[in-house]
């Protein structure tokens, strides 16, 4: 597999603050790669070093083998960049902005096609200033594609959007992937990283705390499963703790049992057998896997949205 992006020992210092601390990773061709972490973890700085918008203090970032510091022009030709909360000219229509930005790459993009991709065909003749927040975000996605780039960088593409607008944007990002573009995105939404990304780098204080597929990250958690149970009778806590795979049991005040398990496949039959033996009925039974949120908590000991 060819690496589209190679980041080697990347470090960025702002006087006393170390924003990015010796970070290395590779992104494969056609991958959707997520950089996940809370605000201030260094996500945007990494992205901007790769895009050539910031100078790394040490290390380097190559895009298709090109160092943006040495050949900025060649590096930029082939990438599509969406910046966090960046605007476009207030007094140009969407069509005019896309055409103009296409000319920056000496290309003639088809604005209609780009706008159709993000569902803004009917806004072709209105100006950016008249778009809603969600429409603006969608438009910035269309603008990253004016040069038909093989690599697309999206910095917090769904920040501040309502759930519906966010899903809409996810679809667009998935379409980018289907057009076999490599997508690198930053986010602090766990469900976004889980829904979109093939691999996720979890950032904390300028370092990569973990990097893997979302499934693997969750599977390698010490306790990846939870079972929630509401039973018709009271159950002995000691016996439940002895069930196969169970590491802990909590009994909440409203009568709900919450079991942590290393293996749901073993724990569930044993739990049902226990209920049967006592003639009890499960009024509510729910099994759920941990999320990247739990991964982050387990890796850093911090809540992501603190």
């Amino acid at each position, binding site marked *: 597999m060819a690496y589209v992006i190679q980041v080697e020992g990347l470090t960025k210092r702002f006087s006393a603050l170390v924003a990015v601390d010796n970070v290395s990773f590779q992104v494969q061709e056609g991958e959707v790669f997520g950089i996940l972490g809370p605000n201030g973890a260094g996500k945007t700085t990494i992205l901007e070093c790769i*895009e*050539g*918008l910031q100078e790394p203090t040490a290390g380097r970032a190559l895009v298709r083998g090109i160092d943006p510091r040495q050949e*900025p*022009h060649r590096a*930029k*030709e082939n*990438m599509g*960049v969406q*910046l*966090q*909360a*960046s*605007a*476009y*000219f*207030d*007094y*140009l229509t969407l069509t*005019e902005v896309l055409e*103009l*930005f296409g*000319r*920056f*790459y*000496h290309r003639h993009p088809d604005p209609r096609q780009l706008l159709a991709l993000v569902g803004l065909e009917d806004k072709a003749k209105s100006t950016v200033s008249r778009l809603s927040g969600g429409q603006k975000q969608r438009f910035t996605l269309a603008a990253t594609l004016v*040069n038909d780039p093989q690599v697309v960088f999206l910095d917090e593409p769904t920040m501040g959007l309502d759930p519906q607008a966010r899903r809409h944007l996810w679809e667009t990002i998935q379409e980018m992937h289907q057009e076999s573009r490599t997508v690198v995105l930053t986010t602090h939404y766990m469900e976004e990283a889980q829904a979109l990304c093939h691999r996720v780098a979890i950032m904390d204080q300028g370092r990569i705390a973990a990097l893997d597929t979302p499934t693997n990250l969750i599977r390698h958690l010490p306790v990846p499963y939870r079972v929630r149970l509401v039973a018709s009778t009271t159950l002995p806590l000691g016996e439940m703790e002895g069930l196969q795979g169970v590491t802990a049991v909590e009994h909440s005040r409203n009568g709900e049992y919450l079991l942590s398990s290393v293996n749901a496949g073993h724990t569930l039959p044993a739990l049902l057998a226990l209920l049967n033996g006592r003639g009890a009925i499960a009024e509510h039974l729910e099994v759920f896997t941990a999320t990247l949120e739990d991964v982050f908590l387990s890796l850093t000991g911090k809540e992501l949205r603190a």
Partner: protein
Amino acid sequence: MLFLTLFLANIKMLYRNRQAIFWALFFPLIFVVVFGLFRLDEPSPVKMALVDQAQDLLSARLVQSLGKVEFLKLNTTFNEEEARRKLVDGDIAYILVIPSGLAQRVSSGHSTNLTFIYDEKRIQNNQLVQGVLEQFLGEMNMAVQGSSPLLTLDSRGISARRIGYFDFLMPGFVGMGVMTFAIISMASQLALYRQQRILKRIKATPLSVRTFFLAQVGAWLVLSLVQAAVILAAGMLLFGARVYGNIVWMFPLVILANLAFLNLGFIVGSLARTVEAANGLANVVSLPMMFFSGVFFPTDNLPSVLREIVRLLPLTPLLKALRGVLLDAQPPWHYPGELGLLTLWVVATSVVAVWSFRFE
């Protein structure tokens, strides 16, 4: 080619920006209209009460002749006491009393005093009116004595052109309009582009920032030519401002000076952190020039230290050259000092502008 595309896009953006058009055209036009309506170079009429206590042939002749003096508005209905009250109230400015028995006294060869009463507060007009009256009485004396003057003054103005205050103001308004718009709009535009991260977005494309800004400066220069033409045309067509030189020379002067103004705006936009700060700082830079560089008054009237400082500001040489070209009908190269100073400003501000620029 790319430059042209970007230049045209900038023209389009300017044209659609109502606020920019307002500050570029309507703001200076307000000055043209206000100063065009108040004709400041024509003295306002002076109200004078003429109290004729003589009521004889000679006094009637005096009254009739005084009535022909253009800027005196005579009132002959008051007696002296009423007239004095009116003067204290400020309703009239002057009183001239013709004593009774005037014709008799004059014909018997007695010299006679006419009483001139004035309000001491009206400093500007008192000397003028008194002078006019003395001259008038002198002529009357000779007419009554039937003699002709031995010495006369043959006045010949050396300027063949009539240049009124409004004509003097018009090149000032052109320079002021171009200067204020260039500095303020360039400063806030740059701050806005930075604040909205448009600059950074441009940096992420292969387009060079130099091309980006040169195209913008090009569009601004075109607008400044439109500004100069519209402002001058308004003064000439609406209020009959007089221009004696070749108007075309105005345009290269405006472009040269505007390069310096745009650079100043660019520097202000780089130094300020926010759009609001850029706006405020741009006003700090442009307002003193607007008031001191001779838009409204010749800089010769300033205290000498201030005059020497003001002489170096970029608006001052522009106004001097503009007035020379438009009012004295000189070609621009008749002002090498002014052109040199403007060029120096363009070069210096270009260097500082490049040095002060930042993307974020």
